[in-house]
């Protein structure tokens, strides 16, 4: 039982990391109706930027917000430079462009920092605290706290501010929003910036566990896809809940299902995507698309 609780808790911690990246995917999906395949690579690049700051002597807790701000700006620049010129292109073209962007960012990071795995300093002590027989690592508690605060901030921004309101409006119905005075194009850029910053949180939190290298996010993005699809690709709340479910499920599957440890865990992530798409294509929180014709 104690082992089970420990597994659930560390599953929630990794789930928070998946949730952050899944939320980034959902933000962009809502803004332009497509999955940004470069999301993981953008998070990886941001993490390298954070690494560069930390190795130049900045403390983690200063480098972390600075990296998020830089990632936010970087997301806006990518939207303006790469996405905006092809805004009205067919979805397939845009998908290919995000795939190209992923390759480009990956190659850029490899060119600058090389492909050797580097240790990324963890901001949390590796000790554990004993809570009535359940050993909880400070790392897990720290990751849960950080991702929790970030997700809460995004929620408050989207649901309780005027910017969040117009951001949702622009994503939902660009034509009507424009007519109501919303500067739709800049709202989409803001969405990219926000997604990029939220994605960077997942990179900064996962790097101490995984070692930092350009391909670091390639398994994480699969779990984030699984989380987003499970929650309903249009639902920010769904992305968070989906991320937590995926994190806990994979942790438990790795421990209790014979042979699922290690590389086969990724198969569980992919299996979640396939099963959800077959049984409940709109996910847990998604609404069926209804169109008046």
């Amino acid at each position, binding site marked *: 039982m104690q082992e089970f609780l420990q597994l659930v808790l560390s599953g929630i911690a990794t789930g928070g990391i998946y949730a952050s990246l899944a939320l980034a995917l959902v933000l962009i999906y809502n803004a332009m109706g497509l999955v940004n395949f470069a999301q993981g690579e953008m998070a990886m690049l941001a993490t390298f930027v954070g690494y560069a700051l930390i190795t130049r002597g900045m403390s983690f807790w200063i480098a972390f917000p600075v990296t998020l701000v830089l990632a936010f700006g970087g997301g806006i620049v990518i939207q303006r430079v790469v996405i905006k010129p092809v805004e009205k292109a067919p979805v397939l073209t845009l998908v290919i462009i995000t795939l190209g962007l992923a390759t480009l960012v990956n190659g850029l990071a490899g060119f600058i920092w090389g492909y050797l795995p580097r240790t990324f300093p963890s901001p949390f002590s590796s000790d554990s605290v004993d809570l009535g027989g359940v050993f909880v690592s400070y790392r897990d508690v720290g990751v849960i706290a950080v991702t929790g605060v970030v997700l809460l901030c995004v929620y408050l921004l989207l649901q309780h*501010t*005027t910017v969040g309101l117009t951001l949702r*409006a622009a994503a939902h*119905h660009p034509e*009507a*929003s*424009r*007519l*109501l005075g919303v500067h*739709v194009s800049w709202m989409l850029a803001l969405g990219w910036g926000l997604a990029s910053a939220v994605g960077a949180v997942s990179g900064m939190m996962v790097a101490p566990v995984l070692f930092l290298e350009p391909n670091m996010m390639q398994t994480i993005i699969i779990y984030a896809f699984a989380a987003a699809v499970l929650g309903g690709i249009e639902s920010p709340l769904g992305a968070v809940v989906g991320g937590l479910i995926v994190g806990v499920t994979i942790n438990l599957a790795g421990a209790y299902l014979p042979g699922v440890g290690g590389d086969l865990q990724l198969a569980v992530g992919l299996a979640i995507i396939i099963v959800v798409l077959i049984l409940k294509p709109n996910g847990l929180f998604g609404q069926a698309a209804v169109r008046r014709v």
Partner: protein
Amino acid sequence: MGTLLEVADLSVRFGGVVALDRVSFQVEQGQVVALIGPNGAGKTTLFNVITRVYRPSQGTVLVDGRSVLAIRPHNVVRHGLARTFQNVALFRSMTVLDNVLVGDHTHTKSGWLQASVPLPGAVAAESAARKRALEMIDFVGMRMHADRPVATLPFGVQKRVELARALVSKPRLLLLDEPAGGISHEEVDAMARLLRRVHTELGVTMLLVEHHMNFVMGISDRVVVLDFGKKIAEGSPAEVQRNPAVIEAYLGAA
């Protein structure tokens, strides 16, 4: 009293199709003008030119003497223009109140940084915005639905919500695309009463596209008739109803 909307010599072509052919008419301040015509006559196209969705091939559209073609699309509302859509273009997953708040946000004069950080000034501005939005929801008689997601409401209610969203920006000219389309008989009468109140109590000038003839004749000061992109008649409701060209367009050659 002056001319609020002046459409002059306006043509729109899509490839070889002429959707509007040298249409000219005016809407005076304080008037209710209806735009009628058989399907495909170019009524919605005209709305889309006025609200900067389409660019005309020739001609001008002046609002208060200023060309709308020089205004960027997201600034149209700041020049006192608002519209509703034929099939209702609401934010379906958002509540009635949030929908109307989006319509109001151009009044909340704070920058986006102020608007994203809950400083005291921004909080006060937001509660003022909520108050204005709720007043407008009250005006259209939908107060009891304010916190419900739009997607759960019947079409007739959604039409009123869209009207509230358009009105909260305090437009001088309101464009209504089939306000009586797709709703029941009782709702049509109630909509006519509501629009009369918009006209008299809020002093909003209106240009409306509508197929429902009783509705049009009961509410309009003037009627402009389009057929195949051309203006074929203009006048008071009674004059237009007697006009042979209009009767022919609607019923076919006698």
